[in-house]
């Protein structure tokens, strides 16, 4: 059984050389919106909890993952379809994302971010009769 798989592999370096380190790739992401939260899934194979950084600065959320290229003693890389490097991707958050309660987990090379929405701040203006 081999059904078609929708693939949008972004496997070309975004930035060729950054600070003398390895190449940087943009991970593929899925984004969902539920009533009270957003979910962002990002494929970051090779990344663990300790090698990923998620930062928020102003309204920009940044995902950065570090991957060390593996080397095998006595073996030469003879064929390659994907490059090994770090991950980087940034998103602009809307005002209704609760920045203080974002949860992040990494499992099997997939980062999952849960971004709760803030309560809409409604303010009723009383109209007084003159």
């Amino acid at each position, binding site marked *: 059984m081999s059904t078609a798989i*929708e*693939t949008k*592999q972004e496997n070309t370096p975004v930035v060729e050389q950054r600070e003398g380190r390895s190449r940087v790739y943009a991970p593929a992401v899925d984004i*969902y919106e539920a*009533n009270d939260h957003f979910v962002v899934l990002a494929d970051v194979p*090779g990344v663990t909890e300790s090698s990923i950084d998620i930062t928020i600065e102003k309204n920009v959320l940044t995902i950065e993952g570090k991957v060390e290229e593996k080397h095998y003693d006595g*073996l030469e890389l003879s064929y390659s*379809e994907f490059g090994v490097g770090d991950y980087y991707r940034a*998103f*602009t958050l809307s005002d209704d994302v609760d920045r203080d309660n974002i949860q992040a987990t990494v499992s099997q090379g997939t980062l999952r971010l849960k971004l709760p929405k803030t309560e809409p701040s409604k303010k009723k203006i009383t109209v007084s009769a003159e």
Partner: protein
Amino acid sequence: MFFTDLDRWHRSVLGELSRGFQRTYPGIRLYQNNERATVLAEVPGVNPDTIDVTVQDDQLTLKAEKNTEKPEGAREIRSERPEGSFTRVVSLPFRVDSNQVNAKYSNGVLEVSLPRAEEDKPRKIAVAS
């Protein structure tokens, strides 16, 4: 739209380039010498129980299923990650001892180590003088 993707420009460019990849998912890397080979495949987010690795002679077949659990009642805003079941057949540089093949899956990377079959190894023929 609540998220604005700063990388949209490069996605539009790469979207064009990546169309040819459909039959070659997942991508692999092959490391080898004369005695053994290691194949790496990036398959993030698949259920390890669905991974099926088989070897016959010099053909390695990788199968897995990638199904994302969609949050209940959620609306999809963006979908770039591949989904579904896939099969990838890799031609190896030599025949492999299928009893000695070792596969492990960690952090979304599948690593298969494949020792060359004894009968496939080059033999030195003694030259009689």
